[in-house]
């Protein structure tokens, strides 16, 4: 396997940054997130970022088209720019999985979302494996993610302690390793053992079980402590619901889409005032059923990658692993 010592990574990133718009996990003053690489900046390749990388493809606010009006007349123009080729470096396997789920949503079922696709197609993915839970709240292994290795990327880096072992996962990845061959050595490597995860929710058969639990009192029970904020959905790497709204200034304006949260009361409220999900019971139920039943029914995958961000930042410790446990404990008549 090709290996690169960790101390050489910043030199490698400097080189890459000459070619690509390079995004790396950054821990600055604020929350850790993927941000443009600056030489000597605060790159943080340990653990996962607080903010998931979804905004690289699906920004929190994204302009779609602009318009101008003149009395009754008007015109519009699409604002879809092809971004520069970019590299997302240091994505953890849980987040790689989440990008795969976002691909399902934005690129399949009859409609392709060009705003997402234009960025997705131009992004080179480099993942870094974990040899165990990066945070106590991690549970990716239980959600079918191999914490050590990702396949749906261009290049994967194994964490071998003092160095990374690099494997190309695509043709572009091969070319990349060729191009930067001077940074790598060839070595026999032994992958470290994966350490024990504290949280191990069992999702075997959960979709089928939930199909019979829509009216179960469990939802009333678990939703009581929810505050109805959007912290879980905004930090979730897979949550992808959005709103389309506009901004008008005089006779000019633009329409944009922005993240929205199914936990907000106005999310499903219609113009006449009717709301199909009027209280937090329905909203919490929809969130968890979407993750564990509806999405698997529609796309064949759970909409949770076990990154643990929601349960680490939820103001009231709403814990999806615990809810999964409670679902399992329910005895259906």
């Amino acid at each position, binding site marked *: 396997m090709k290996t690169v010592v960790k101390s050489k990574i910043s030199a490698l990133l400097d080189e890459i940054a000459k070619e690509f718009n390079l995004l790396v996990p950054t821990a600055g003053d604020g929350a850790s997130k993927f941000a443009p690489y600056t030489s000597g900046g605060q790159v943080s390749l340990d653990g996962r970022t607080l903010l998931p990388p979804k905004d690289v493809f699906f920004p929190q606010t994204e302009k779609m088209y602009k*318009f101008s009006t003149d009395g*009754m007349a008007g015109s519009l123009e699409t604002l879809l720019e092809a971004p520069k080729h970019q590299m997302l470096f240091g994505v953890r396997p849980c987040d790689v999985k989440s990008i795969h789920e976002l691909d399902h949503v934005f690129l399949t079922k009859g409609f392709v979302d060009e705003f997402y696709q234009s960025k997705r197609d131009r992004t080179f993915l480099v993942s870094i494996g974990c040899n165990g839970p990066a945070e106590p709240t991690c549970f990716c292994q239980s959600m079918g993610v191999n914490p050590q290795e990702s396949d749906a990327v261009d290049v994967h880096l194994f964490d071998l302690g003092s160095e990374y072992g690099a494997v190309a996962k695509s043709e572009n990845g091969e070319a990349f390793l060729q191009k930067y061959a001077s940074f790598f050595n060839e070595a026999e490597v032994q992958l470290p053992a994966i350490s024990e995860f504290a949280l191990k929710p069992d999702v075997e058969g959960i979709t089928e079980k939930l199909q019979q639990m829509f009216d179960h009192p469990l939802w009333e029970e678990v939703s009581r402590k929810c505050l109805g904020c959007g912290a879980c959905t905004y930090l979730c790497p897979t949550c992808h619901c959005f709103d*389309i709204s506009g901004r008008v200034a005089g006779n000019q304006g633009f329409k944009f889409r922005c993240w929205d949260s199914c936990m907000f009361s106005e999310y499903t409220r219609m113009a006449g005032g009717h709301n199909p999900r009027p209280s937090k019971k329905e909203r919490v139920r929809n969130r968890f059923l979407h993750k564990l*039943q*509806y999405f698997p029914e529609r796309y064949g995958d759970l909409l949770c990658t076990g990154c643990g961000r929601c349960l680490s930042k939820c103001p009231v410790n709403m814990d999806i692993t615990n809810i999964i446990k409670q679902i399992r404990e329910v005895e259906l008549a």
Partner: protein
Amino acid sequence: MTQVLRAENPVSPLVPVVGKIIKIVAEKIDVKTFHVSTPEGEKPFTPAPGQLGMLSILNVGEGMFSITTQGPNHLEFSIKKTGVLTDALHEAEVGQTVAVRGPYGNGFPLDFCKGKDILFIGGGIGLAPVRSLINYAVENRGAFGNLQVIYGSRSPADLVFKEDILENWPKVPGMKVDLTVDRGDDEWKGNVGFVPAFIEQLAPSPDGDKVCVLCGPPIMIKFCLQSLAKLGFKDENIITTLEMRMKCGVGKCGRCNIGSCFVCLDGPVFTLAQLQKMPPEY
């Protein structure tokens, strides 16, 4: 019966094309029908009956509406005044620039309906989505059996599409239109009473695999379903359309889901048999 049609848009299914209001018909005090075509006078896109269109006034907002019918060069939206966008639409005049995108949703199951007798039931503005199929059946008269429309509104003044229900449709061979109002007035000679009771009174027969297409306020639907069950209509043959808040129209933005179905993509047309398998969250 899921038929997903690709939106005809140049760049993205989320970006509309510019259109123009070419005619406005005041149906009743708070309902107007807007005829929309492109600035060149063409039809923005060709929807199947029952499909939806996203209509916007650029500097106000966007909303999903059923396309109540179409002509060779235009689409028609019948819109009740309920919020910010619909208020602005009601203020608009002929010539107003709008933006449209679509068509979205599955539409009515035409192949399933063809060759069968059809009973259309509408309440209030609920006739709007049904009208797209009625007009399709009228235009393709030979492809359908007998047609019957049962339509009710609160008062004679609240009846919409008066030209169709009073003039056009009753003249179509093999087509019958029965009207009822909750409260009559001095000039009203027709039936007075709620739609469900009127259905039972008319007692249309479900024989010959008759299909019933139903749309109206939720409370009316609830009681109509009971009446239809009494008359012996099968759940598979009762078809209705649903309404949910929508933003993208292409099954991505998330909010219009009922279970794992998206109303904007897999709906808005569902049979009662399908609805019974879905969570009652609409």
